[in-house]
Structure formats: C-alpha cells, structure tokens
C-alpha cells in the first residue's frame, strides 16, 4: 500500500526534507545543471552569503542555499531583483531538479 501524506522533496544526498510539492510556483526554470523549480518556501536549509549576479533574466542579488544536514548546495534564494518584471521572485527559492528527490510519493 502506498503511503498517503504530504508530497515532499528531499535532499538527494541525505534525504533531509527540504520542500513541499504544494509550494511549487513554477517548474520552468534553469539551474546550473539543468532544470530547476521555483518554490515559495523551503525548510531545513542554510542560506549562504549574498552575491550580486547577472543571470539570464537580469541582475539579481541571490544567496546559495545548502542542506542544513549535509551542506550540499541545492540551489539559491532570490534576495533582490532589479528588473521590475522579476520582482515576483524576491524571497523565493530555486531548487535544482538534480539535487532533490521525491519523498513519500
């Protein structure tokens, strides 16, 4: 019998719970190594230092996020966006598909 519970994503290395499927805003993002998802919320992560980076969509201030248990870098958090059309990303998290695995489903 399959377990029914909240659909979770976990860290690929240590299976620490990172994010809920319900928090996905978009699946159409590009990460460093391929596809990535935009989440409104992420848990059990450490946020690193802020950096100003020129991304494909413009200049952003981002901070890398890593798993709180095993320190694997999983993606980044948008701290600030400097193009008006990108402001919706502020405070949200990018998790790379290659770094997270499905848990409970």
């Amino acid at each position, binding site marked *: 019998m399959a377990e029914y519970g909240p659909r979770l994503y976990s860290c690929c290395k240590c299976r620490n719970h990172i994010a809920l499927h319900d928090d996905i805003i978009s699946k159409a993002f*590009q*990460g*460093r190594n391929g596809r990535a998802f935009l989440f409104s919320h992420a848990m059990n992560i450490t946020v690193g*230092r*802020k950096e*100003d*980076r*020129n*991304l*494909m969509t*413009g*200049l952003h*201030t981002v901070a890398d996020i890593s798993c709180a248990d095993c320190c694997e870098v999983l993606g980044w958090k948008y701290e*600030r966006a*400097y193009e008006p059309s990108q402001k919706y990303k502020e405070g949200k998290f990018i998790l790379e598909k290659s770094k997270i695995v499905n848990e409970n489903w």
Partner: protein
Amino acid sequence: MRGRDWINLILPDELILEIFDHLDLKSSRDACSLVCKRWCCLERISRDTIRIGASGSPDELVRILSKKFVNVKNLFVDERLAIPMPVDVGRRRAGSQSSVRLHLVSEMSGSQDNEIEAYCLSDAGLASIGDGFSRIEKLSLIWCSNATSAGLKSMAEKCKFLKSLDLQGCYVGDKGLGAVGECCKKLEDLNLRFCEGLTDTGLVELAIGCGSTLKSIGVAACAKITDTSLEAVGTHCKCLESMALDSEFINNKGVLAVAQGCLQLKVLKLQCINVTDEALQAVGLFCLSLELLSLYSFQRFTDKSLYAIGKGCKKLKNLTLSDCYFLSDKGLEAVAAGCTELSHLEVNGCHNIGTFGLETIGRSCKQLSELALLYCQKIGNHALSEVGKGCNYLQALHLVDCSSIGDDAICSIARGCRLLKKLHIRRCYLVGNRGIIAVGENCKFLTDLSLRFCDRVGDSALVAVGQGCSLQHLNVSGCHQIGDAGIIAIARGCPKLSYLDISVLQNLGNMAMAELGEGCPLLKDIVLSHCRQITDVGLEHLVKRCALLETCHMVYCPGITAAGVATVVSSCDKMKKILVEKWKVSQRTRRRAGSIISYLCVDL
C-alpha cells in the same frame, strides 16, 4: 636647432643610467631603448626586472634575454599568462610552432637537437637562468610544470645572491630545494604553492641551510609538507618574521614549534582547519612581537585563543578574523583590552561576534585606521557609535551585508571620524539619506565612496556629498532612488572624479551624462550597465568630453545601440576595455577595436 642632439652630447653615461633607474614601466623602458644605439645599450645595462609569460619557447627566450640584459635582479616566469604572438599561430600548442621557431632559430648558436618541444620552462631553461642571470635576487616560477630538481639545482648553484624564491605549481622535488638550501645563503623569502613534489625532507634541508637568513615563509596547498618541516623551521629559522600557512596537513605541533622557536615573528596567517586553541595560546605566549594575525575559516578556535593573543601580543596592529564561527564578543573584548595599538580590523562572517565586541574596540583601540565588517548580521548601530566616538583616526570603513546597521551608525561615524577617506557600504539596507548627508557634511577628506545596493539612499545624499567631498571614486550601483539630480550634483562638485559606477540606476537619464562630460574631465572608468534610460545621445555627450576614458561597461542598456558603441570606440583613444553585448558591435567597430571589446557572459 634641427640635427643637434643636446642630450646625448652633454649627459654622461652615469647620469642617463640614473634617469633610467626611475623608469618603472616596461613600455617606457622599451621606448627609451628604441631612441638610439647608445640609449639601447645603457637601458639594457640598467634593466633590472623581466617578466616572461607563456611564450612557447621559454628556454630559448631566457637564453636570448640573459645575453642582452646582464644586470637583471628580478625575474618572473608565469606560464599562465598568454602573451600576444607577432604571428598568428592559432592554438599555441598545435603543430604550427614552426613560425615561432623560425624567428628564434637564427639566434640559436649551434645548440643541441631540440626534438622535444619545451613549451614550458624546462631544466635547460633553469640552467640558462643560472648561467645568464647570476646576479638575480628575486625569482618567481609560476606553473613551470617541466621544471624539476635538476634544473633548480643548476640554477641554485650559480645564483648565489638569491634572496627571494617563489614556486607555484612547479613539480620540483626535495633535491632541488635542498640544493637551494646549500647554495643560496642569502635567501630571505620563500613561497611554495601547489608544489606537490615537495616533502618534508626538502623543506627541512632548506631550513637548515638558510635558517640564519630566512625572514619569510609561505606554504600553501603542498600536501606532503607536514609538522616535521615546521619543527625544523622553529629550530633553525630564528630570524623568521613572517609565516603564512594554508594546509589541512598541519596540526598544532607544527604551529607550536614555530611559535616557540621564532620569537621574532611579526606576521602570521593561518588557514589550517586542524589547528586549535593550543597553537594560538602558544603564539600569545611566545610571539610577543606579533603585528599581523590573520585567521581564516577556522571551525575549531574559541575565545581562549583570543584571550591569549590579547594578553601576549601587545604590539598587534592588524587582525583579520574570517569565518571563525566560535569566536564571540568576549574574545574580541580581550583583544581590544590588550592590543590597544590595533590599526586594522576585519571581521568576516563570524556570526557570534556582535555589537558588544565592537563597542569594546571603539573604546580601547584609539589608533584604529581601517575597519571592515563583512556579513555581520548581529552588529548593530550602537557598535559603530562607539567606534565613531573613540576611533577618531579612522580612514577606511567597509560594511558588507550588515543588515542591522543604519543611519544612526553612519551619522556617528561621520561626526566622529572626520579623517575618513574611504567608505564602502554594500547591501546594508537600513542605511539611507540621513547617514550619507552627515558624511557629506563632516568628512571633508573623503575620496572613495561606495554605496552599492543601499536602496534607501537618494539624491539628497549625493547633493550633500557633492558639496562637501572631493571624490575620486564613486559607486552607487543599485541605489535606484538616485536620479539625474544626484549625479548632476556630483558632476558639479567633484571635478577630480576618475571612477564612476552608476549601474542599475533605472531613473538616470541623459542629462546626467551631459553634466558628467562637462564636470568630470578626468574620468577614466565608467560603469553604466542596466541603466534603461541612457541612450546614445547621453553616451556621446560623455565620451566626447572625457578624453581620458579607459574602461566603459554598458551591458543591458536598451537605449544604447551599435552607433553608440562605435562613437565610444572612435572618441576615446585611450580606451582599454569596453564591455557590451556581442550583437551591438558592428563589423566595422570590431575591425577597428576588436582587442578592447569584451562580450557579456551570463550565468544561468
């Protein structure tokens, strides 16, 4: 009168040589040597520094250069630096080396069979250095991957005056270093980085050989050098003043040995994750002359280390604490109380150091001249109030990602530290107009101001700064409330401006550019990226008046077109670097100025 050469008739050789001694740039020296044969001879005698990049045939190059320049004291060989070839040989390491070799074959005087191409400096090259540059005092070999012990030995045997040796990325072995220890009895300065062939044996032999003269040692990323070497250093290098270590294979034992043996140590830089409090306690006990201490990425140090340093190293002037997670306010308080001559302090990412620790620094360290607080979320306004009250000689302040620091702090600094020359604030979102206006009103000596991504700062701040400070360097990238009014005030008030970064300012338009052109003729570097309202018209006004422009970054500017880029290229004959999107560079512009244009590369 035409045809009369006054200089060469009247000036004797010695005077011309003295004049040449003042020439620092290679380009100036090369220009002088083209004037006439006499100047060429004299310049060759007086040249003392040569830098060789990745030339494709370094062994030959060294031989030729050693014949021409006999008094060279400093030789830097860096195989990472590609130098432009006179002939287009395509990929440097491909088979088309023949054109380069042809150029040099005529100079080769019957040397042996060179079937094996030496693309990097080899042992033969090192032997040539020994033969030709025997008076050399400073030698730096970077990524000379073909050099081995034999080469180093032959060089050491001939270069008796060697004072400083820098090996990075060279696979020399212990025999080579041992030979240096035996032969170079004047060696004062040794730097080893990525020398994976060296083990303790080599460094121990060198410590024994040159122990009485060695003043400075640096070891980074050399996996086989362990505590044993440091014990030898502690035993033999009694005059050692400076030690820099970056290694996972060094433990307390090694650092203890250096601390106990080298009592004259003035500079200590440690990036060794296995070193703990014990080692630093020894430093605090024995190295009473210590003036500079840098601790990087230590997870294992606690406040005990800082108590010891504060107690013993009374002459400490310069302290850098980077990512030292367990250090707290108590430790910093101990340093503040004990090291009252502290003039430089950098706290970077030490999350347990907060307001109280900095307050004690402000109260005790009156000589503080440079303070850098990076990524210190816990440090609040009150800390800088105390610094403003106590450290009146402060000249430079760097604040990055200090989210609790705001206008109150900046006002205190401005009013208290009137000698401030350099203020750099980045991503401190609580800093706004009030603080910067205070800076403009009080800090008359300010020449370098940077307020990146402090988005509460607006035009009124820049008006005050323009009126009060004669800036040379201004960076307001990301302070999007700033518009034409602020930049015009700067243009009118800071005629000596030479560096300006106004990127990511959405409200900035062409008026400001025109005023900048009129007001800042000494402008050398400008960054305009992400300015949506600046167009070719504004850019033209700027570049036509600022004749000294050397760099111009203008990516993500939708108002600037290929015509604007072409104008920049044609108006600025001193231009060295333009950063722009590839599709904005026309064929003609690329032909005219291809080498100075860099294209934007985006991260994903």
